C-alpha cells in the first residue's frame, strides 16, 4: 500500500497542478454558464438557470456562428487531411532529392507565430497590396477581401489550410511510420505500386491512426480562435465568426462572462465527444 502511494507521488503532484489551473476552471465553467456573472458581480452572481442557453439557441447570430463553424469544417478539414496525406506519402516514399529541405520547411510553419503569418498575408491582400492588384487584373474589378463576405471567407479558409496542412502532414507521417518497411518491400516485390500499394497494404494498416488524425484536425478547426482572430478578426460584421471567436468577443470584449461561458460549455461538449472518440481509438503507445 505504502509503496503504491510512493510510486504515484509525482503523478499526484502533476495532476493536482493540472486540476487547480485547468480542471477547476473547466468544471466551474458549467456553473458560470447558468449565471449572469460579469465584472461587477464577480463573487455573487445571480443564478439564472437555463436563460443563457435559451438566449443562445434563439439568437440569430449564434445560429449563424454555428453554421459557419460547420461550413469551415466542411471545407477546411477534407482539404487539409488530403494534403497532409499526399505530402506524407510523398515524403515517406524513399529517396527524394530535396527531402531534407522539404522536411525542414514542413516544420517551420509550426515555429512561425500565427500573428506574424497574418501580418504578412494581410498586407498582401490589403487594398493596394501586390495580391489585390493581381486579383484586380485577373477579375477585372477591384475585390476588397476584408470587406467582401465571400472574399474574406475564402481568404480565411485558404489560410487555415495553409497553417494546418503542415501539422496534418506531421501527424500523418507519424501514422505512416508505424507501417513496417518490410511489409512495404514485400508488397513491392509482389508488384503493388502507387495507389494500389496504398489502398490494399498501407491503408488497412493505418486506418485507425488516420481517423485519429482526422479527429485532431476537426478539433483544431472548430476551436481555432487564434487564427481566425488574427486573419479576419471575425469580420466583416460577423461573417467569419465561429463559435470560438464569438466566445472571445462576448467574454473579453463585452464582459458577458455568463453568456460566453454557455458558448464555452457548448464547445466543451463537442470537444468532449471528439475526445472520447480519440480515447477509444487510441491504443496505449
Amino acid at each position, binding site marked *: 500500500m505504502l509503496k503504491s502511494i510512493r*510510486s504515484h*507521488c*509525482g*503523478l499526484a*503532484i*502533476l495532476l493536482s*497542478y*493540472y486540476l487547480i489551473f*485547468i480542471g477547476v*476552471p*473547466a468544471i*466551474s465553467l458549467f456553473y*458560470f454558464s447558468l449565471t449572469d456573472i460579469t465584472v461587477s458581480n*464577480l463573487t455573487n452572481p445571480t443564478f439564472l438557470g437555463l436563460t443563457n442557453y435559451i438566449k443562445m439557441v434563439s439568437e440569430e447570430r449564434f445560429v449563424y456562428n454555428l453554421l459557419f463553424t460547420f461550413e469551415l469544417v466542411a471545407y477546411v478539414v477534407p482539404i487539409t487531411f488530403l*494534403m497532409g496525406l*499526399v*505530402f506524407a506519402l*510523398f515524403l515517406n516514399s524513399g529517396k*527524394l532529392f530535396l527531402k531534407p529541405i522539404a522536411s525542414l*520547411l514542413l*516544420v*517551420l*510553419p509550426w*515555429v*512561425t*507565430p*500565427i*500573428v*506574424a503569418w497574418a*501580418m*504578412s498575408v*494581410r*498586407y*498582401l491582400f490589403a487594398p*493596394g497590396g*501586390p495580391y489585390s492588384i493581381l486579383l484586380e487584373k485577373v477579375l477585372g474589378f477591384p475585390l476588397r477581401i476584408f470587406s467582401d463576405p465571400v472574399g474574406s471567407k475564402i481568404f480565411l479558409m485558404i489560410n487555415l489550410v495553409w497553417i494546418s496542412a503542415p501539422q496534418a502532414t506531421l501527424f500523418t507521417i*507519424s501514422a505512416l*511510420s508505424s507501417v513496417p518497411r518490410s511489409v512495404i518491400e514485400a508488397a513491392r516485390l509482389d508488384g503493388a505500386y502507387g495507389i494500389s500499394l496504398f489502398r490494399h497494404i498501407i491503408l488497412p494498416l493505418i486506418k485507425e491512426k488516420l481517423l485519429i488524425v482526422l*479527429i*485532431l484536425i476537426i478539433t483544431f478547426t472548430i476551436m481555432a*480562435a*487564434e487564427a481566425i*482572430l*488574427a486573419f479576419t478578426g471575425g469580420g466583416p460584421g460577423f461573417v467569419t465568426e465561429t463559435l*470560438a471567436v464569438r*466566445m*472571445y468577443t462576448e*467574454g*473579453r470584449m463585452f464582459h458577458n*462572462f455568463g453568456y*460566453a*461561458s454557455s458558448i*464555452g460549455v457548448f*464547445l466543451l461538449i463537442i*470537444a468532449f465527444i471528439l*475526445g472520447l472518440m480519440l*480515447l477509444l481509438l*487510441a491504443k*496505449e*503507445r
Partner: protein
Amino acid sequence: MIPRKIVQALVTVLFFIFLAFWIYPLLNLTLLSFSTKTYTVEFTLRNYISLLSSPRYLNYLKNSFIVALGSAAIQIPVCLPAGYELARHKSKVIAFANRFFPFSLAIPWTVILVSVLIYYLRIGLYDTLIGLIFHHSAFSAPFVAWIYSTFIRSLPKDIEEAAQLDGCGKARLIFQITLPLIAPGLIGAFVWVFINVWNTFIVAAFLIESEENIVFAQALYNALTYIMSGGMLNFAYAATVIFITPPMILFIIFRKWIEQILIY
C-alpha cells in the same frame, strides 16, 4: 495507368508551390521591414533602431521572455517525477495516464479561458505574468510528462541498477546518472514549450490587460487590428521580424530534438 514518375513530379510541384505560398509573404515582410515606404523596397535600419530603443517594445520583449522561460522551466520540477513514474512503474492509473497524456494537447482548453479569467479576477492573478505562466505550464504539463517518460523508458534499467549496486544514492542516481542521459528530452521539451508559449497570444489576450504586462504576441495582435488602416506598417513588420527571431534561432539550434517531439 498514369506513370509513377509523372505522379511524383506533380506532387513535388504541388508541394513546392504550397511551400512557396508559405514562404513568400514572410520573405516579403522581412524585405519591407528594412524599408520606410509601404510597398517599395529600400534598405535602412531605421525601423529596427527606433524599435530597439523604444522602452515599450523592450518591455514586451522582456515580458515574453519571462512568460516563455517561466512556463518552460516550471515543467521540470512538475513533470519530471511524473514522467519517471509513467516510465518505470505499473498500475491502472499509470496505464490510463500513458494512454491519455499524449492526447492532452488535443483538448482545446482555449474554451475555458473565460472561466480562467473569472478565477484570476477573483484571486488576483488577473493581469499578472505569473498567472499566464501558471496557465501555460498547466496546459502542457501532461504532454511534457509523457515526453519525459518516453525518453526515460528508452534508458535501459540496467544502468540505474548497476549504479545502485555500486553504492549510488537515490539523489545522486537522479542527478548524475538519469538526468544527463535524458538531457535531450529535457532540453527538447523546454524549447518546445518555449516556442509554443512565445507564439500564442490568445491566452494573454484573455488574461492580460495593462500596457506594462502585455506580451509581444499580444502587442502584435493589437497592432494588427488598427495597422491595416494605414500607419506605421514597416515599423510593425520590423517588430514582427524581431518577434520571429528567438523561436527561429532556438528551432535551428535544437532542431533534431524538437522534431523527435513533433513527430511522436
